[in-house]
């Protein structure tokens, strides 16, 4: 076990996979000379050279499409978007080309590519730079979507994503890069599409993913201290495949659920969780499932409002108290 940051975990995953397979290469804005806008690719250019660590022009749709073409002939591109907000320009390359190639070629051309970068809000980046794309990509068959919350999951999932033979949308947390956590020594792989219990508890189930896992854990600690409510925190880790089995099992035990996400409410990941849980555990539910999401507005720049728009432990606690009839 070693204690490293989420950023270091991603860097290690890239280095290990590039050393393991010469077909793996990284491309994107500033990934080379600059070591990446968030320094995730630190040192890789020096180690692997410009053909394997390629600085691109600002042409998201173009270099995402380039990645698709390279993947179709057997390379394994890792396309870095400086942030997922800029990938809106590459939405077509991801959804119409990458996600559909294998199906529309009748299973001839699979596309082993990873699209990665930070998503979600950070600090005061305002409307165009603070978005959660998770639900859009989770909706698309042909893609897999990973959203790691911890260094260990970031390491293990990115390695699995690079080895995966299908396109993977890999959404990192802009505010998680400095988060530290234990990661196993040696090869560490986390299977794509398998949820994880991040905290055990018998009274209520909190289902969430990405950055919100940390918010849920903070809320859970406070709930235990102040209200003697033991919350089970389930981290989906990926939103496609969406593994709701653990959550459903947990709800059958706790009979109460809160689903939490950073993004906007309408047709969000939380909505899908509610659908799956009520379908599979209807009779086990003692109360309607409560959803907590980011507020339904473009992000404000003012810190005073940003704080209120993104879900906080307090919001989660209120929701939990409601489903536990403590309010």
């Amino acid at each position, binding site marked *: 076990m070693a204690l490293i940051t989420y950023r270091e975990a991603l860097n290690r995953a890239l280095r290990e996979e590039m050393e393991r397979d010469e077909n793996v290469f990284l491309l994107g804005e500033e990934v080379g000379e600059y070591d990446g806008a968030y320094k995730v690719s630190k040192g890789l250019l020096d180690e692997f050279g410009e053909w394997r660590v390629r600085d691109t022009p600002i042409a998201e749709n173009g270099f995402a499409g*380039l990645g698709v073409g390279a993947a179709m002939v057997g390379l394994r591109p890792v396309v870095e978007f400086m942030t997922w907000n800029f990938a809106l320009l590459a939405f077509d390359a991801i959804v119409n080309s990458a996600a559909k190639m294998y199906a529309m070629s009748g299973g001839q051309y699979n596309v082993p590519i990873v699209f990665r970068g930070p998503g979600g809000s950070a600090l005061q980046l305002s409307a165009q730079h603070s978005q959660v794309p998770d639900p859009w990509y989770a909706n698309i068959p042909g893609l897999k979507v990973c959203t790691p919350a911890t260094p260990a999951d970031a390491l293990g999932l990115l390695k699995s994503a690079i080895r995966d033979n299908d396109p993977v949308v890999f959404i990192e947390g802009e505010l998680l890069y400095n988060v530290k956590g234990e990661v196993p020594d040696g090869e560490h792989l986390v299977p794509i599409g398998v949820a994880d219990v991040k905290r055990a508890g018998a009274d209520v189930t909190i289902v969430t993913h990405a950055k919100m896992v940390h918010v849920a854990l903070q809320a859970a600690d406070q709930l235990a201290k102040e209200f003697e409510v033991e919350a089970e925190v389930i981290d989906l880790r990926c939103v496609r495949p969406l593994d709701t089995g653990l959550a459903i099992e947990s709800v059958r035990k706790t009979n109460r659920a809160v689903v939490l996400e950073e993004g906007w409410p309408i047709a969000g990941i939380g909505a899908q969780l509610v659908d799956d849980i009520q379908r599979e555990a209807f009779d086990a539910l003692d109360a309607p499932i409560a959803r907590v999401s980011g507020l339904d507005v473009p992000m404000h720049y003012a810190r005073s409002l940003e704080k209120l728009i993104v879900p906080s432990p307090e919001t989660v606690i209120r929701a939990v108290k409601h489903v536990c009839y403590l309010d």
Partner: protein
Amino acid sequence: MASTEDVVNQDQFDGIPKEKLLEILRSMLMSRRFEEKTAESYQVGKIGGFCHLYIGQEAVATGAISALREDDYVITAYRDHAQALVRGMSPRKVMAELYGRIDGCSGGAGGSMHMFDKDINFMGGHGIVGTHLPIATGVGYAIRYRQTDQVCLCFFGDSVVNGGPFHEAFNMTAKWELPVVYIVENNSYGMGTDIDRVAAVDELFLRACAYQGKRAEQVDGQDVLAVHAAVKRAVVRAREEKRPTFIEAQTYRYLGHSMSDPAHGVYRTREEVAQERERDPINTFVDQLTDAGVITDEQVEEIDQQVIAEVEDAAEFAENSAVPGPEEIYRNVYSDEYRGGADGRDAWR
């Protein structure tokens, strides 16, 4: 290599062996006859969806692809039957795909717009205008990455030159010196829009001026040998110097944009179409060959009959190929066992 006897000496054929000339003729005829049959089958409802025919443009695909090596790559847009056939996809596979049958090149999943055949490096068949250009750039990137001497040939339509993907792809291809030959099939129209009404440039090949390192030239797309020669030069340049080239082939589409579109219509006159048919690429080439004594009219007729028979066989094959069953639905969504949202979420099927 062809032995000296087969080499036709007229310079007009600049040393292309006779067998190659006949292969080129045969390819053009195949493409023409195949699509005449396609139109027929479409009218009686055996083919569905959007179906774009290449009739009138055969010299472009034939002249260009015949200049490639077997291990090179070919990629194009949705008007893709001719490129697939010339590249060597069996008419049976193409027709079965059009019929939406299991023996189609894409198992009936893609249809007219999405012909793919990995065995011959035929990379599709893409439906979103212009978006396969960056994909071709990626193939070129992979070629240099692996340091092989392959080439990627990318066809696209005139209306592509006004879109972002064209610009982003050309800039990266030129900057990184990727072995890609881009060839625009300039048939003057994007659907019902005359390219001159929407492009702020007189001659499309001039757009290359914005990408230093990318050579450009314009060629008569109705002259199969002219196209062949231009692409051959570009291919050598790509293979040996790793430099991209942009070729504008001026051609013409005889029929409507797609099967649901009239041959002329408001955007062009019946006369214009009739006049363009005068410079038919196949007739022109046949005359060239017969005048030069390379082949007789009877021999042309013979090849034509063989081609027609092959097309009929393809149609019959398609007719008899199985319709894809429910077990196919989830098969090619992912290359592993994951089956999408199938679990419980579609319990009612």
